[in-house]
């Protein structure tokens, strides 16, 4: 009996370890004088690397998830919930990934951002994964890392139509979400946004049609100079979530 029990206990542990939300990890070490090694453990490791650079260096890099394939995701709902909700959809996340990304240490010079993002993306794309990423440049300081599966990103060729009237940022956010979501493979909902700040900006008339990514970036930049946007794949609810958030929290300091 004892011999049979051992593998059963081991198996239970394995199942339990995967059926829970894991704490993301990020360790940064220097490599010689000019390099950094980012050791990341996460469901979205490339996004975590970008979050680190945004926070540490004040970069303004937005992010768009790819539409993950079923083979890339896993259900991590806890057994107690599963037992209480038989047949219901659990909670899905991209499979946990641990990797090391080597980049040039940012120096604050112009061109740093695009160059280093290129290094990151290149390394990630060399992994044996179906999700790939590219860097989209909006301006000298504003970029986005955009995910794709087999060359298709989630915004794709989604565009917003010209607008004749001025509107505030809240209204623009609602319209962009609706218009862009209608052209995406899943609906798009509003995530975490600066509700008050959006209400206080005026968006001028848009004379031409605009790619959705560019429209979201323009709205983000107009709302605040330290904001970025991100589009995440809510695998569980099968929708995309677009948020506008600060690249890092700025505290008030007396003049």
């Amino acid at each position, binding site marked *: 009996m004892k011999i049979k029990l051992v593998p059963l206990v081991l198996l239970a542990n394995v199942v339990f370890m995967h059926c*829970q*939300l894991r704490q993301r990890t990020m360790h940064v070490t220097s490599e010689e004088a000019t390099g950094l090694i980012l050791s990341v453990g996460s*469901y*979205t490791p490339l*996004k975590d690397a970008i979050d680190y650079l945004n926070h540490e260096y004040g970069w303004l890099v937005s992010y768009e998830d790819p539409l993950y394939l079923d083979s890339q995701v896993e259900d*991590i*709902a*806890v057994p*107690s*919930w599963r037992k209480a909700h038989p047949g219901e959809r*659990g*909670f899905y*996340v991209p499979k946990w990934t641990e990797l090391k990304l080597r980049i040039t240490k940012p120096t604050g010079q112009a061109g740093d951002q695009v160059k280093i993002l290129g290094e990151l993306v290149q390394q990630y794309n060399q992994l044996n994964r179906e999700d790939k990423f590219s860097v989209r440049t909006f301006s000298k300081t504003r970029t986005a890392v955009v995910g794709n599966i087999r060359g298709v990103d989630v915004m794709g060729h989604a565009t917003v139509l010209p607008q004749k009237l*001025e*509107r*505030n940022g*809240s*209204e623009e*956010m*609602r319209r962009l979400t609706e218009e862009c979501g209608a052209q995406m493979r899943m609906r798009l*909902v*509003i*995530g*975490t*946004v*600066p*509700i*008050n*700040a*959006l*209400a*206080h900006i*005026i968006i001028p008339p848009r004379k031409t049609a605009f790619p959705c990514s560019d429209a979201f970036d323009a709205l983000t930049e107009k709302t*605040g100079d330290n904001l970025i946007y*991100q589009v*995440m*794949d*809510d695998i*569980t*609810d099968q929708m995309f*979530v677009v*948020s506008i*958030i*600060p690249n890092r*929290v*700025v*505290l*008030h300091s*007396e*003049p």
Partner: protein
Amino acid sequence: MDLQYSGRVLELGAQLTLYPIPDKGGLDSPRSLAIDSKSTERAAVAWLPKESDTVVALSNVSSQVINVRLSSEADSPQVVIGPHETILRNHRFEGASKEVIAFDANYDGPVDAIRAFGYVKSWKSGSFPLRFSDPAASTSSLLNAVGLRTTAPTHIALQNLSDQPVEYHLHLAEIGSEKPKTLDSAPSHLRPHTEEVVSITSPLRQMMAMGVERATLTLKTDADARSFVAAATQELQNALLEDVPFRPSNPRLIMRGAYPLRWTEDYTNFPMVANVSNAPMTVRAYAIVGGVTYTFSLRTVAPDTTTVFDVDQLRAKQTPDINGKVIPLDAKFGKFHWAPMVRTPTTLGLSGRNEEYSLINNRASSFSCQIACEYENESYPYFDNGFEGLYKAPFQTAARTSGAYQGIWDSYGNYATYPISDPYMFGTPHFDTTTVLNAFLQGNNTTVQSDTGNYGTTNFHYNWVSYNGQPSEDGSFCEYPLAASEDLGGPGQVPACPIPDDESTSYVRQALVDPVGAPTASDFLQTLVTVGNDDGNKIIESNNAYGSDSCSYDQTFPPIISVSMTTWTIGQVTPNYPEAQVVIPGHNQWGPDVVGYGPGAVRYFQLNRPKLGLSMPCGFSLHQNLEIQCVQDGTRTSYKPNNSLTSTIDGTGLTNCRSGKCSRFTYP
């Protein structure tokens, strides 16, 4: 015993308590300092109880041989004392009818070479010290013994050192009363080079019959200051004698004092200051106990009165001083300082004494020693509300008020503050004025009022006059006026618009028409607490500290840990914003400040946190700093630095709060 220390003159005091007869009362050794001597003569006189002994110690503190002539020693008047040698001379008066003993010593050598001390010892009556003094050091023939007990048999020993007869009379005045009861003796005479003892037990009993417990004795003579020596001895109880020294009230030596305080065992303390001049005198006094400076209000002592500083009662009742401080009950030792606030060249007037009394220790000690002229003080103005920083609004009367105080430091670092109400303490205080701020003293110089003018910044400058030091020995003043001007700091800033003191917040409604927050966010409207009109100025929010969000666990719905850094216009509707069309800010109002999670986030967390075994409820907490920006000058001023914004999601809805005002919605 030779005690030396580093520090200021008279910073340290020391006194030996001797018990010559076991189980009888103790006596204190008077101090012996080089600065107390001006000549090579020493004199002492004392009452001689029946069957008593005297002991006289003569110490040569110099490095040379000194010949001392001691007048009362008929058998061996000449004493040779080697360097740093002490000799003792004992006398026994058993069976003798002598009631008074006088010693007169003189010697050749440095004026401070010989230190003389002695005591009278009686197996029946007890013991008390023989106080030797240098007659040449006395600058007044007006001698005072402060605060004698009227219940005690009291003996006054007198000695006339001169070649002329001296007329004297005794004056008793009740202590602790502004209109004291007094008693005067008829004039008496003392022949040249004689001594006598006078009992004043009877006059003191008369005072006691008038309800007087203590009286100050003034000995008035027609002698010059160097010709008369006196000593008072009171028989208390249980063979306990108290020696109450006579002090001349000359300014250099007497007109300020520093005495120990003690609350061990049954010790009591009784500091007193007497004014024997013909003019009122103002006294400042403070007790330093357990790190607390207990400051008495300035006390004007009328002529012929004695004021009492009853530290024991004030400590027992924990009575606050003028600055609200109390004497700590757990402190066992302290010190009491007093000094005159005299700004005219007065040459006499005040004498002080503290009596420490303990039945357990059979001890009644007098502390009445003087402090030298070097005991300086300095005074500065002190204001309890700074002048720098932001003033709330332009063109405001009494935009800020500040209590004005006189801070006084003595040379030992003791510090006390007084309201600036004594005209002696300040000269002509004057604030520099500007078009930005006008500050001036008010209310008998007890407060400073600052009125704001046009907006801008300014530094403050204050001109004032104070005094240092004390009257000197020859009657001139070693104090000196200081015409000083002091920068009080700055800058003081007057903004172009009123700065709110605060704001009130009110929940108005569910944000039903906000394109991104509806219907789970809440509209709050704020009313500024301000002195003027701020309509048209801006409210800018920022983070006072990092926020926290316990709901967000992945990146799908990122955590809300920052305010949105929004700017509102006071008293105006935000254009093109549907919520602002229904939540309209009025005069000095701003908003809406929309607080809460968006509906997508609420649903996401309600549905998915349970799947991961994560607890509910959860929520965010933000620390909002609010600034007002004056449109006219562009200044930004924080007026509410840490306003709380929270939102809490549970299984059936959420609760949004701003400044503790909350609204709850059911969702979905």
